[in-house]
């Protein structure tokens, strides 16, 4: 590099006009492209690392006897998802659009697609891959501790293969929602709600864990086995979200700081608000709900992270805090859907609410900033459309899996633990466990 620099400089002295041209060509756009390349890559790595976060949260918030199974599910949805998304999913999401509904090109070799991006295709593909895997992972938590491993593999593959890419195409692949002006910057709806709604359908169809609801309808708590690991997972997710949101800018520019700030403020506010509510409501501040509060704040801000102000982010985080506490209670106690890690509340509800709130808080176009109700309407349409699509397709999916492979392990395997039943192993061989 040093040598070529020297030549360029020499040339620039003798052949001035050309030299300027040449020097510019080599440097300016290229360097920004290189900068964008490493930025998007680093963001992708951070989002990848969220897999570890999900694994720790889900394992920590469930019982020790199912911990290996949870780990294996997280490992496999990402691994299988990475391959499937490369081979088919990316093409369905970003290939040539069929009526704004689905992509139709770029299968098997998505890196040959030309999307007119500033960064190499491979960079964009890996960034999209880690996003796709996130959607699939969300479901695993809600259906934990009772799902057959084979069934899980199957439905998480279908999610990454079809359900998610279609929604992605609508919003980010140039489809109909993006044409409407729908704002979902980093995926409150595209990624999180899709995961959340699929989780809701799955958890409802598979039914609650044995012992979760008494005959009298009483709700029994089934405490997670390792709150410290769960908290580590939340911190990892928060860390990864700094790739998720700022990375979605897809270029290194001056907007990134604002995105990072809104992300952080919403997460922090979510945690604080949940702490306050649970303190008032239950008499003591609840640790595991406060951890969910962080995640709720993060999910909610994801749609509008680049569109709202700092104080808007604080407001969105606060709303997310309420949604977390009352939403999780509603799902648990009213709907009686057993969601061990709170995935539906965190990803489904907060994702939807956060997306709609962009219609209120967007500095440019939001109702509270004098933008009228247009954006609010579009946001609501987007949320509803994605919910309808996901609830519908995943209903068919889970029913089909149930009727074929079978969705649930048998009673004995559930009681002894899925680690034993599904993998003939145990996560904590040296520890004396209560169960």
């Amino acid at each position, binding site marked *: 590099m040093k040598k070529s620099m020297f030549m360029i400089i020499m040339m620039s002295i003798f052949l001035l006009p050309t030299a300027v041209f040449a020097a510019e060509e080599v440097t300016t756009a290229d360097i920004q492209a290189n900068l964008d390349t490493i930025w998007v890559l680093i963001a992708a790595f951070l989002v990848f690392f969220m897999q570890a976060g999900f694994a720790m949260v889900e394992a920590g918030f469930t019982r020790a006897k199912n911990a290996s199974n949870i780990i294996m599910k997280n490992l496999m949805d990402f691994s299988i998802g990475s391959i499937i998304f490369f081979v088919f999913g990316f093409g369905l999401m970003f290939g040539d659009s069929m009526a704004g509904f689905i992509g139709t090109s770029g299968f098997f070799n998505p890196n040959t697609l030309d999307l007119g991006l500033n960064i190499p295709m491979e960079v964009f593909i890996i960034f999209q891959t880690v996003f796709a895997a996130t959607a699939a992972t969300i479901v695993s938590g809600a259906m934990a501790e009772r799902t057959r491993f084979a069934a899980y593999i199957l439905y998480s593959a279908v999610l990454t293969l079809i359900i998610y890419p279609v929604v992605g195409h609508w919003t980010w692949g140039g489809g109909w929602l993006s044409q409407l002006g729908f704002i979902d910057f980093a995926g409150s709806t595209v990624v999180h709600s899709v995961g959340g709604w699929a989780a809701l359908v799955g958890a409802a169809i598979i039914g609650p864990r*044995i*012992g979760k609801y008494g005959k009298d309808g009483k709700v029994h708590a089934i405490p997670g086995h390792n709150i410290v690991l769960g908290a580590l997972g939340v911190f990892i997710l928060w860390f990864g979200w700094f790739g998720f949101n700022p990375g979605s800018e897809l270029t290194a520019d001056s907007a990134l700081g604002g995105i990072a700030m809104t992300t952080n403020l919403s997460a922090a506010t979510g945690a604080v608000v949940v702490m306050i509510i649970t303190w008032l409501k239950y008499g003591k501040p609840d640790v595991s709900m406060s951890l969910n509060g962080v995640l709720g704040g993060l999910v909610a801000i994801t749609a509008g992270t680049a569109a709202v102000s700092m104080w808007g982010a604080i407001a969105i985080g606060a709303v997310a805090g309420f949604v977390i506490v009352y939403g999780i209670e509603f799902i648990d106690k009213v709907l009686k859907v057993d969601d061990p890690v709170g995935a539906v509340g965190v990803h489904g509800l907060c994702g939807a609410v956060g997306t709609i709130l962009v219609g209120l808080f967007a500095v440019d176009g939001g109702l509270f900033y004098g933008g009228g109700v247009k954006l609010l309407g579009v946001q609501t349409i987007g949320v509803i459309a994605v919910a309808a699509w996901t609830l519908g397709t995943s209903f068919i999916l889970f029913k089909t899996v149930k009727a074929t492979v079978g969705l649930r392990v048998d009673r004995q395997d559930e*009681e002894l633990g899925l680690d*034993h039943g599904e993998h*003939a*192993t*145990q996560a904590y061989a040296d520890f*004396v*466990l*209560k*169960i």
Partner: protein
Amino acid sequence: MKKLEIVIRPDKLEEVKEVLDKSGVTGMMVSTIMGCGHQRGIKEMYRGAELTINLLHKIKVEIIIRDAMVESITDKIQQTLRTGNVGDGKIFIYNVENAIRIRTGESGEKAI
């Protein structure tokens, strides 16, 4: 006074506790043990090598009760736990010579 040592499947603890509570048992000691009886081990795999776990997770519930209660309690436990499969568990009965409640210093049947 007698001690009943009841060995059960882990997932039956709640039910047993309920039965004992209802029968007026005033206290219990619960511990996690590894056991084998007619129900023998299970096979596990770890990194391609087999691993016979011939000790299974069991819960041991110990209660100290008045002599008069032994029969009714063993009956109720059997009703609750009998499935007819190996692994249903066992009850062992021992004599207790004395019991002392530290809080008050009471001893004998008053103390349990």
